[in-house]
């Protein structure tokens, strides 16, 4: 079956008791067991619940994996991955990295003696130089944040296999509608499912997907021990959101392309970073890896100083000024002071995140309305 059909039906078996076409939301925290020392499928909802299981089944299928785990947030999911390691272990991550992941790796993992090196993974020399005998994980984002860099996933797979590393891919910016890293040989796919998968800015959920049941067991052990699973209401809203994932992505990507083309012609804009533009350094790789789409995220620099940049951000009427992304509502953000504020200033500069950089998450509104809104905001400077 095709992607959209599976998004609607896999994991959504009608309730056998009532025939309800939508499975019920199970709020129970505990489950009655068949007998002393005998365990049913579910015992305590930290360890598993029917609603979570249904949605995990859907995500695992859409990502071409065998298993999935849902977490209270994307960061809880990423943290679970890092909990596979121990003192002395080493992680290599791509430099164009979400601020929250940067903070986790540099300010939390370091406390347990896990070390981190950031590199440009598309530079084999840099990758090789960063490698140590203790390196255990290579961590990349399908589309980097906020510069929209595109890592060569196949090269990363080859490198990870050669050196016996796990390859973890944060697939949040692409979603399985655009890219399924497990099919390319990645070991773990991570999602902030809060974004495209949920799609409506109303549930905070993270996910890990694997294609290796043994690795899943190790991650599940951490999740169950640390207690970071998401609640049933969030899981339900996520499952509901995924039913329209593909059509939302197609439409939003198409709108994003129009906006990127428009901005790249705009006199007040000096640079547009969108993988769909031929001028973007990752354009060719994006064409190969993203199923003919280029995502809904873009960054651009305005011809002005920090004050002018802030003026644009606060002058939009349809784009809401907020962090997060991937939902039906369009958002505008200033990475230097918002999503990447937790970078050290020099690291931010090294990553190419200037004060003039503005990030857009393109929603489901009519493209003409969004372009009109950006024009009027840019006219303020």
């Amino acid at each position, binding site marked *: *079956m*095709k*992607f*959209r*059909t599976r998004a*609607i*039906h896999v994991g*959504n078996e*009608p309730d056998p008791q009532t*025939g309800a*076409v*939508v499975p019920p939301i199970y709020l129970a925290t505990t489950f009655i067991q068949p007998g002393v020392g005998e365990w049913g499928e579910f015992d305590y909802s930290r360890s598993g619940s029917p609603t979570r299981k249904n949605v995990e089944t859907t995500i695992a299928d859409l990502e071409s994996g065998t298993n999935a785990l849902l977490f209270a947030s994307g960061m809880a999911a990423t943290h679970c991955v890092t909990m596979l390691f121990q003192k002395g272990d080493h992680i290599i991550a791509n430099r164009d990295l979400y601020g929250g992941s940067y903070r986790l790796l540099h300010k939390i993992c370091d406390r347990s003696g896990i070390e981190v090196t950031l590199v440009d993974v598309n530079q084999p020399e840099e990758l090789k130089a960063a490698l140590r005998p203790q390196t255990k994980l290579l961590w990349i984002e399908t589309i980097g944040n906020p510069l929209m860099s595109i890592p060569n996933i196949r090269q990363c797979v080859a490198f990870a296999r050669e050196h016996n590393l796990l390859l973890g891919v944060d697939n949040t910016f692409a979603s399985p509608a655009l890219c399924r890293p497990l099919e390319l040989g990645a070991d773990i796919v991570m999602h902030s499912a809060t974004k495209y998968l949920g799609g*409506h*800015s*109303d549930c905070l959920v993270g996910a890990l997907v694997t294609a290796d049941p043994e690795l899943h067991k190790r991650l599940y052990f951490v999740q169950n021990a640390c207690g970071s699973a998401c609640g049933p209401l969030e899981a339900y*809203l996520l499952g*509901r959101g995924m*039913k*329209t994932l593909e*059509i*939302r992505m197609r*439409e939003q990507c198409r709108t994003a392309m129009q906006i990127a083309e428009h901005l790249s012609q705009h006199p007040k804009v000096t640079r547009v970073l969108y993988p769909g533009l031929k001028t973007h350094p990752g354009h060719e790789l994006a064409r190969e890896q993203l199923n003919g789409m280029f995502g809904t995220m873009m960054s651009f620099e305005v011809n002005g100083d920090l004050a002018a940049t802030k003026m644009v951000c606060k002058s939009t*009427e*349809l784009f*809401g000024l*907020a962090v*997060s992304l991937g*939902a*039906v*509502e369009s*958002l505008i953000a200033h990475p230097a002071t918002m999503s990447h504020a937790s970078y050290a200033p020099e690291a931010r500069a090294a990553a190419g995140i200037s004060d003039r950089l503005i990030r857009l998450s393109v*929603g*489901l*509104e*009519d*493209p*003409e*309305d969004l372009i*009109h*809104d950006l024009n*009027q905001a840019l006219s303020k400077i």
Partner: protein
Amino acid sequence: MSAITRATGDNSANHHSADRTKLQQDGIGFSTLSVHAGEARQKNADSITDPICCTSTYTFTNTQSIIDFIEQKQPREEYGRYGNPNEKVVEAKLAALDNAEEAIVYSSGMAAIVGLLMAKLSAGDEIVFFDECYHRSREFCYKHLARFGVVTRTVKTGDMQAMEAAINDRTKLLVSESPTNPHLTCVDLEQFVAIGKAHEVETLIDATLATPYNVRPIDYGVDYVWHSATKYLGGHNDLLAGVIAGSKEKLDSVRHLRGILGGINSPHNLYLLERGLKTFELRMQRHNANGQAIAEFLEQHPRVEKVYYPGLKSHPSHEVAKQFMKGFGGLITFNVKDADWRETANIIDACKIPRIGPSLGGVESLIEQPMVMSYFNYKPEDRQKFGIYDNMIRLACGIENTEDLIADLAQALES
């Protein structure tokens, strides 16, 4: 203030502001309306989405604030049966989508039509219905409105002369579905409205199957538009809701009666409805595309005798549908060639993707046999009269991939 700011509400954080306006229709795109219309630009706690407001009653700061409310100086909520904040947002969004001044949401589609009829009709009044209509609407009018002395007259669907002839000086309302269920007959809305206006009788269209994406009857002068919002508007088969849209003047008495009868929806449901509406245009595009492609597939299939779908040239309403509708929806009815009711049922049972169940308009495809699902206890001659045949199947296309649905139907028809 620009059109968008005006449309998406005020910029103050006051959630009770009366300035939570419906989006004006001045060239704003349909999906923009679906996402933003009716919502305050800045919400409580600066949340991007509306909070679910689970409260049965609303508190006043002091006695003067009650008096201000009674004297209508300060619009606000009072008690849960009269309205709630989640409802306000959804009603404004639905009104914007239907290009109506006002919309009233109910706990189900039937609660909505009953609420309207009970508010507008008195003993001795009459209404005229087209005969193809939802069987529960018909049942309510003939069995229950009749008990209150309201007379219902039924004429053949689309027969405008018969409808006009059925009007007398006691007639208060003309009622039609467009398209009808399950025959998908479409009504010429201009003629329908012209008859109402000529005789000073109000008009009501059940546009559940069309949705405001495909047609907005208010634009043609229809007085009331009725939807079961359970269907395409909610879109996920997970809530019940109904809505009546129209002018504020005409709906004031309807809203007042709802406050007494209590058929209001719940905040949880209303939130799901608001959320469902955000992808409304996208879903409708898929429903329309699936409906058209599958109707065309079925029409050329050797085991299919007849397909009822307004997007097909063979449908008697095709020209009318083309004139009034942007697309033709996801509902298809078809008759199986040389099949009795059991052989027809076997095809339904062989389907792997569509679930067997009543309802329509959700992302999951649903399939059913009207003779079994809705008319099982009717006498055969009554079923004939309503055009419900033993070999008839109703398919509500969801938004799954078209190829998957066609492949599944092909294997079921060949089984």
